[in-house]
Each structure stands twice: as structure tokens, then as C-alpha cells.
């Protein structure tokens, strides 16, 4: 089993590296692999090429990798925490909750006056991450409580509905915030990895790294939670503190992604299923690298398609993710043995 995880991880890593290089070399403007590599090495003579590779594409590629990886790991945590094979930050409405948190903050600032708005603009990285974290955490707690009352598939439907509701409210709020002079974030109902500049990458990466550390730390007890609360308890796990830790890890992973990239759909739901298939196991710890790499690969694929040199067109990231992701979810729901008990 260990060998299987190692081989799969290395394969995914190689694929991710190759795709990253492609994404650095090709976009609306086509460079060459050589150009991209020399720019990375700092040997690129053409300043424009170097700027396109290092200042525009590299932050985007890193953002896609970090965000996709974070969502993949968060998906593994949530599917264990909710004991629900279709749980993920997007499907259970956590991303929309995070967006709503940011929208409320921006609206409050807009009505509070220009000083509040410019504070938000200056400290946009940390302040929107905190706002998103509050939204994500509240939604997660609510869904956990609800998850004890209703079945997994019902919870999925409720989660999607909560997502729609929160996004509707977010859209209305941002509209009025814009009218009140709080136009801090625009075009945010779609997901995108292109909006993060290099200076903000640490704000994205730091909470995600913290979340990964927590995920690794909770991996062992979370595995036993897959059998249910009583069995986990009988195996010596303190279930309530485990829940809080896993929840904290999820929030740390998801909140910066919502704050910087918007509601990235489907990746967190699908990546854990790929990871389990590759590992041939559901033990959490080996799933983490696989889900992270798989999520990163999915995210980067979506981004590469969005930024392919379509003339004068921009495709929407979530449209691409939905075209690929929704059929996969349908296949999972209909055929996957992991959903058998919930069908």
C-alpha cells in the first residue's frame, strides 16, 4: 500500500510539474518551454518574457496549485468529518458562507465610509481571509449540526441550496456596497486563480500550510472516525476535540482559497475519490498527499483551459470545472461503491 501511494504521488508530481511548465510557457501569448525555463532560472534576457512568466503566470500557477491542493485536502477532511462521500467545502456551502462573510465585511466598510474601505483595500489579504474564515466556520458548524439530523445526500442538497442562498445574498450585498462606494472586489462571483499577486501569496499559503499541518496531525483519529463515532471512541479517540481540530483545519485550508480565488467548485469533492482509488485505501494520512496533488492538478488543468489562447474570449473557471466535475460526481453518485450505503 505504501508503495502504491509513493508511486501515485510521484506520478502526480511529475504531471503537475509538466503542466506547470506548460502553463508558464503557453497562455494568451505563446512562449516556448525554453523561454519559461530560462525565465524561471533568472536567465531570460527579454524583460517582457520574464515579466509574463514570473509576474503574471507564476503567481497564477502557484495559486492554482495551493488552492487546488488545499481544497483536495479539505475534501478528504470533510468527507471523513461528515462521513459523507459527497461532502466538500463547495458542496456543503462553506465556500459560499465564506463569500458571504467577505461580502458583509465589504458592505459594512462601504457604509462605514471611505476610511474603512481604504483600510480594507490596504489590508485586503489578511482582512478578507479573516472575514472568509468566520463565514466558513459558521457554515461548517451549522452543517455539522445538521449532518447529525439528516442523511448524507439530503445534506448535499441542503448544502447546495445554502450555497445558492449565500451567493444570492452576496451578489445583492456587493451590488449595494458598490453603489455605496465600496467597490473593493469585482467580478468575484466566478472563481479565478489570476487575481493573486506574488505579494499576497504568503497570505494564501500560510493558513493553508497551517491547515495541512493540522490535517496531518488529525489524520490518524480521523481514519477511525470513518467507522463512526462509537467505534472511534472505542479506539481511544476523543471525538469532540477531534471534530474541532478537523474543523479548524478545514477552515484554515478553505478560507484563504475563498478569499483569494472565489468559490472554486468540484475540486474538493472529486479529488478525495481519485486519491482513494489511487491509494486503494481510505486511510487518511496516505490520502492527503494524493488528494493535494490531485486537487492541484485539477485546478491547474482548469486554469490552463481558461487561459488557453482563445482569441478575445475568456472562459469561466467554474464553467470548465462544472463541465468536467459534474459528470464525475454523477458517476460517483450512481456507480461508486463508496456511496453505496447512501444511495
Amino acid at each position, binding site marked *: 500500500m505504501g508503495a502504491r501511494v509513493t508511486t501515485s504521488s510521484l506520478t502526480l508530481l511529475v504531471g503537475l510539474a509538466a503542466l506547470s511548465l506548460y502553463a508558464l510557457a503557453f*497562455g*494568451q*501569448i505563446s512562449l516556448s518551454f525554453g523561454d519559461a525555463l530560462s525565465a524561471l532560472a533568472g536567465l531570460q534576457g527579454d524583460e*517582457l518574457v520574464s*515579466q*509574463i512568466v514570473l*509576474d*503574471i503566470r507564476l503567481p*497564477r500557477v502557484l495559486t492554482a496549485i495551493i488552492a487546488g491542493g488545499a481544497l483536495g485536502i479539505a475534501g478528504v477532511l470533510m468527507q471523513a468529518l461528515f462521513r459523507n462521500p459527497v461532502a466538500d467545502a463547495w458542496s456543503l456551502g462553506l465556500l459560499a458562507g465564506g463569500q458571504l462573510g467577505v461580502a458583509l465585511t465589504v458592505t459594512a466598510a462601504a457604509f462605514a465610509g*471611505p476610511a474603512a*474601505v*481604504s483600510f480594507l*483595500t490596504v489590508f485586503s489579504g489578511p482582512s478578507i481571509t479573516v472575514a472568509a474564515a468566520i463565514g466558513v466556520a459558521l457554515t461548517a458548524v451549522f452543517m455539522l449540526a445538521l449532518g447529525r439530523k439528516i442523511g448524507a445526500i439530503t445534506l448535499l442538497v441542503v448544502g447546495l441550496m445554502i450555497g445558492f442562498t449565500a451567493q444570492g445574498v452576496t451578489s445583492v450585498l456587493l451590488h449595494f456596497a*458598490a*453603489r455605496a*462606494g*465600496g*467597490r*473593493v*472586489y*469585482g*467580478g*468575484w462571483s*466566478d472563481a*479565478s*486563480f*489570476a*487575481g*493573486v*499577486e506574488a505579494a499576497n501569496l504568503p497570505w494564501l499559503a500560510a493558513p493553508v500550510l497551517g491547515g495541512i499541518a493540522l490535517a496531518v496531525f488529525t489524520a490518524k483519529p480521523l481514519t477511525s472516525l470513518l467507522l463512526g463515532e462509537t467505534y472511534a471512541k472505542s479506539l481511544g479517540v476523543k471525538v469532540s476535540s477531534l471534530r474541532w481540530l478537523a474543523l479548524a483545519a478545514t477552515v484554515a485550508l478553505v478560507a484563504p482559497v475563498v478569499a483569494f480565488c472565489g468559490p472554486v467548485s468540484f475540486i474538493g469533492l472529486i479529488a478525495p475519490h481519485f486519491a482513494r482509488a489511487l491509494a486503494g485505501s481510505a486511510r487518511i494520512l496516505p490520502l492527503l498527499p494524493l488528494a493535494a496533488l490531485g486537487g492541484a492538478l485539477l485546478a491547474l488543468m482548469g486554469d490552463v483551459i481558461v*487561459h488557453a489562447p482563445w482569441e*478575445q*474570449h*475568456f472562459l469561466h473557471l467554474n464553467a470548465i470545472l462544472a463541465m468536467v466535475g459534474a459528470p464525475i460526481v454523477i458517476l460517483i453518485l450512481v456507480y461508486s461503491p463508496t456511496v453505496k450505503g447512501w444511495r
Partner: protein
Amino acid sequence: MADLTHTQQIERVRTLGIPVVPTFIDAEPHYMGRVEWVELVGLLVGREQEAQNFVFDVEQEVARLKELASAQPRRSLLWAWYEGSGDRWSVTQRNADAALIRDANVELVLGKEDDPRLDTFSRLSTEQLLESATDADCWMIRDPLSTVYTRHDLLERFKAYREDCVFWQPGRRHPDADSWEVWEMGHIRPDWLLSDLIKIAHPELRDGDYRYFQPETWEAGDGGTGHN
């Protein structure tokens, strides 16, 4: 009726017993075409002479401004509004909007051949601006609904940014009417727009008094509201 895509509605409105006179103002291939619709409105409300005088005045003023601009050295202007999502720009390229810009004795950077089947603008990426638009003398960077573009490291590559010739369009907001004047009056007062444009493109003609445009502040906010 803004343009020809709205023709299906004509019959529906007529069935309600309302007489319809289609005015496809947005479909006009030239900016002066929009102004001439005022004569039709004048005819309908019985103020034909007044309308004719208005159109004549605008034509005169536009001609005067074109003359004024043509005496200045030719300059180049990039008209690209930041749409958000990190790297998306609406770049004005053709048709009526492009014609007005060109009449300010300006070369429209990234401009294209007119094509009535296409919008006046296209969506381009930051990369494409970096590749082809860094030499523009001036840059119109956002409209009232765009977010502020804050990648100063990339902006540094643009001549317009380095030489402090970046403008935006607050457009004179009227909060009571929830409207922006530039999208209402602006359609029939190309002379006002052209006057602003000339001042932007030709530093010698600047007097600091702009109607719809302002130097970019690089800060969020609507840059002041309607003040008549």
C-alpha cells in the same frame, strides 16, 4: 430599443396598443449618428427646430475640437478597462467609440477595423496589453464600475503609467437617479467627451477641467458624485 437585437420586442409592445418608433441608437456605426436621433425626438414632441439647432451646435463643436486636436502632434491612447478576475480587460477597439477616440487626433492602441457585427470592445488579458500596449502615451484604465488595478509592478512597464498619463471615467454619478451621466448625456454629447479626450491626449491643451474623466487616483471609490 438600444440595438437590433431588441427588434423582437417591437411587436409585443405594439400589441399593447403603444405606438413604437424604434431608435437603434447603440447600433449607430458613428458617434454622430447617435446625436441625430435627437431630431427624431424633437419631431415627435413638436420641438423640431430646437432639436435641429442642438444637433447643429454639437456638429459645430465637434468640428471645432477636431480641428483643434489636429493641430497637435498625434498621440496614442489605450482604452482598456480592468474587469477584475486578475487579468481581464475590456479593450475598446472599433466602431463608434473608436471613431470618437481617433477624432481626438489619437492613434487607438490595439484598435481594429470597424465591424458592425462586433462589439466596440474585446476582452483581452494583461499579457496581451504587456505585449502590445506598453508604448501608449495615455491610458483610460477604468469606468465607474471597474475595480482599481493595483499591480504597480506590471503597470511600471507602461509608458502611460510612468509618465502619469493614466485616466479613469468617474462619469458624473447622480445617486438620486442611480445613474451615471456619461452613459446618458454622453451618448448625445460627443462634443463633451471629445473635449475631455483632447485634454487627456494632448497635454498642451489641458486646463485641469474635465467633465467625465479624471486622472487615475489608484484608490477605490467613485471619485466624487454628480455636481452640476
